[in-house]
């Protein structure tokens, strides 16, 4: 049964994860993600789950991967400095095709930066920090309600595609209290992990189904599985030859990119026939939304395009939403990151970066001031 609560995004994520069936959480304290961890430490064991604080973020992410292979729906949560330590584990999860959810609550970097305040400066880190060829879904909510909903969706994508999924929020959202409808386990769509369809002697752990994602057997089920971090063939055998390697990495990337319909999700506000479109995401999009309303009141045809998934980049969705636009403004709380993707996709349009660094959230007047210079 659903219920409404007044909670911030960190707690909404914890609730969303539990609604999706979370059974294992490992973490290491870090501002501004610790209260998500503390909340689960209290709530998850009551539901039969396990919450453990590890010695560092490296231990946490690897424990989450191990738990996933023992059958758990598993998650960890951190912020930029902790994410840096989790990167090798993220690579392991990608290579071994381990379903898990990694929450990254952005703060201001580089290094220790400003732990308690926000920016959107880690949107490349979460997508590109690991070495090697890969693609990883990154979901980006703008409210506590969406944090709940996207936590559920993150688990569903992880299970459907046997992949780690990153849920990217920031320090402002993490602690902005809002009304959230917490749906019950029976009121949300839950995607289940696909079990083997062959007996153990015929089952191949990395053999893709039609949608390129493989089925999964756990430890303890009698399949004699090998979770392999080396480049491997469909059976999991190390294959240091070009053909097998290329087949593997092309599939690892295509598995995400070709299933982008499961991931891509955009909110469009007044983009139809708009002369100007603002591209904004996460907490910054809330101010961008206010700017759109302000400029509309003045009779300007402005719209908002807000992706709920940053990666894979939804080029078609953006092209469609900006068909009528003369200018596209990319508003970010960083020095210009997603704007490069927008420029790449909208080659023949004028794309203008609006980079407003603000340790709270870029306020609407700062954004509109920048945008007005181009109108």
């Amino acid at each position, binding site marked *: 049964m659903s219920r409404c609560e007044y909670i911030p995004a960190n707690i909404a994520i914890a609730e969303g994860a539990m609604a999706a069936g979370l059974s294992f959480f490992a973490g290491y304290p870090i501002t501004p993600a610790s209260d998500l961890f503390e909340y689960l430490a209290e709530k998850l*064991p009551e539901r039969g789950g396990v919450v453990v604080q*590890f010695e560092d973020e490296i*231990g946490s992410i690897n*424990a989450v991967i*191990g738990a*996933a292979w023992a059958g*758990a729906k598993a998650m960890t949560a951190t912020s930029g400095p902790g994410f840096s330590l989790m990167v090798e584990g993220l690579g392991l999860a990608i290579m071994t095709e381990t379903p898990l959810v990694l929450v990254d609550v952005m703060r201001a970097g580089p290094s220790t930066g400003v732990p308690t305040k926000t920016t959107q400066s880690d949107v490349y880190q979460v997508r590109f920090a690991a070495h090697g060829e890969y693609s990883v879904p990154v979901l980006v909510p703008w409210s506590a309600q969406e944090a709940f909903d996207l936590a559920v969706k993150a688990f569903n994508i992880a299970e459907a595609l046997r992949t780690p999924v990153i849920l990217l929020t920031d320090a402002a959202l993490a602690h902005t209290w809002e009304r959230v409808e917490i749906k019950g386990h029976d009121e949300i769509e839950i995607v289940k992990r696909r079990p083997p369809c062959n007996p153990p002697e015929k089952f191949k752990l990395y053999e893709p189904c039609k949608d390129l994602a493989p089925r999964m057997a756990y430890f*303890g089920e009698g399949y004699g599985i090998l979770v392999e971090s080396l480049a491997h063939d469909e059976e999991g055998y190390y294959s240091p030859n070009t053909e097998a390697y290329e087949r593997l990495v092309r599939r690892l990337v295509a598995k995400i990119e070709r299933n982008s319909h499961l991931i891509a999700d955009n909110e469009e506000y007044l983009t139809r026939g708009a002369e100007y479109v603002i591209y904004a995401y996460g907490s910054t999009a809330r101010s961008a939304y206010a700017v759109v309303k302000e400029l509309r009141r003045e009779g300007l045809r402005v719209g908002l395009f807000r992706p709920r998934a940053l990666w894979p980049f939804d080029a078609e969705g953006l092209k469609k939403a900006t068909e009528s636009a003369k200018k596209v403004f990319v508003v970010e709380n960083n020095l210009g990151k997603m704007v490069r993707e927008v420029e790449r996709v909208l080659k023949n349009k004028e794309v203008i970066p609006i980079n407003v660094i603000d340790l709270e959230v870029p306020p609407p007047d700062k954004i509109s001031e920048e945008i007005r210079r181009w109108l």
Partner: protein
Amino acid sequence: MSAHPLDKYLVTKRLPHIWCPGCGIGVALAAILRAIDRRVREGALKPENLVMVTGIGCTARAAIYVSFDSAHTIHGRAIPFASGAKLANPKLEVMVLGGDGDIAGIGGNHLLHAARRNMDLTVFMITNMVYAMTGGQVAPTTPTGMYTTTTPKGNPETPVNVIKLVAYQGANYVARASTTHPALIERYTYRALGMEGFRFIEIISPCPEIFGRHIGFRDPVELYEEIKKKSKYKPKPSLEESDLDWERGWVLGEFIERNEPGYLKRIGRV
């Protein structure tokens, strides 16, 4: 072809293994599998509940040869991966097998904390005193003064005493064996598999190709004999006798045996 009694625990089509002639890792793995087989035949262990987790290195390759569930993960991280698996499904019998660099070097922090938690795992550390897979660099267990490719003038550091390190954190079982004494490996593994909490078995093992040859042992048998000579079994040795000393040799035996509640029991998961 007539099957070896341990073939059922191996993916025989992946053999021959990558280990060099004279390497001790195969001897250690065989002894571990014999102990597992004894527990299985006694009905105390189910093969489908066995999980072997390894990191990276020569020893870590063992994961790819066993027929039961296994994971060949990343350098130093086998212990947290294994902890996660055990916590998620307490029925699993989770073992970690790794080299001294993997377990006590890059993975040293995880080792320390898993021992402190008395995490319900059996960890085997194969000590060959060198980073072998990468070509002979200094390890945390390399004897002081010894030549390695990254300490060409001799190792200036003191080797870590992992037996003491793990024992002082509260591990339930701490023993040292050697591949020159495979019966001890089998006996200690058999005992460890019947216990809860953190169990640690160090296994001294010759690396004739990368360690022995670099320090003047031209023949694998010479290094084997040297390690055999230096390894002295002692019933119930004290921690004070646990130093790994190339000049004076080392003691094999069971240093610690406790029956404290394992981590799963402490959090009410059993």
